[in-house]
């Protein structure tokens, strides 16, 4: 089924950030609702490469003053 998403939402920076977060972790989750069915969730361990990428992304972020 082709998702029907409000085009304005797709241009929303918050939603773009959310999509990026969700897609980045997609392969760690089971597609099926395992947690609901069994009461025990499923999460594949983050690989070394993934952890390194997270660290590099964090390092690359500009620091913000408060």
């Amino acid at each position, binding site marked *: 089924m082709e998702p029907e998403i409000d085009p304005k939402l797709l241009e929303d920076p*918050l939603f773009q950030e959310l999509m990026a977060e969700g897609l980045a972790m997609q392969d760690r989750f089971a597609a099926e609702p395992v947690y609901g069915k069994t009461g025990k969730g499923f999460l594949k361990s983050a690989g070394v490469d993934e952890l390194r990428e997270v660290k590099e992304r964090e390092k690359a972020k500009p620091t913000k003053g408060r």
Partner: protein
Amino acid sequence: MSRRDRWLVPFPWEIVTAQNAVLCHAKNALHKPTSDGHDATRQLWKEMHAQPMNLDEAVDLCRRCHRMAPFCFYNGNTFASIIALVVKRLELPPAQSAVVRSLAGHIVAGVSTGEEETAFQEFCESLDGHG
């Protein structure tokens, strides 16, 4: 910074649904509400998401909604990505951010240990009095 805030207010149900649609589309999976979980989850989210709550309560709401399985597929990263973004917006030092994000993600995914839950609780308590 306080642990009590409207953490989930930027994420109305329409965004939750759109997020699941995007995630399902990326994997050619069916984006469809479940017959037994969707309406109850939507109602719970709509009632709770804009309320001021402790950060651990926000994480638990995401966990509960994940478990209630409102969608046929990819409920886990739908709600885990929301809490990941909430943690990201705390703008913690990178190493601490990675740890807190991991703890919160494990809780929402339903795979956390007691030690992880305690560590996350302690982090939430540490938010009071900072900032």
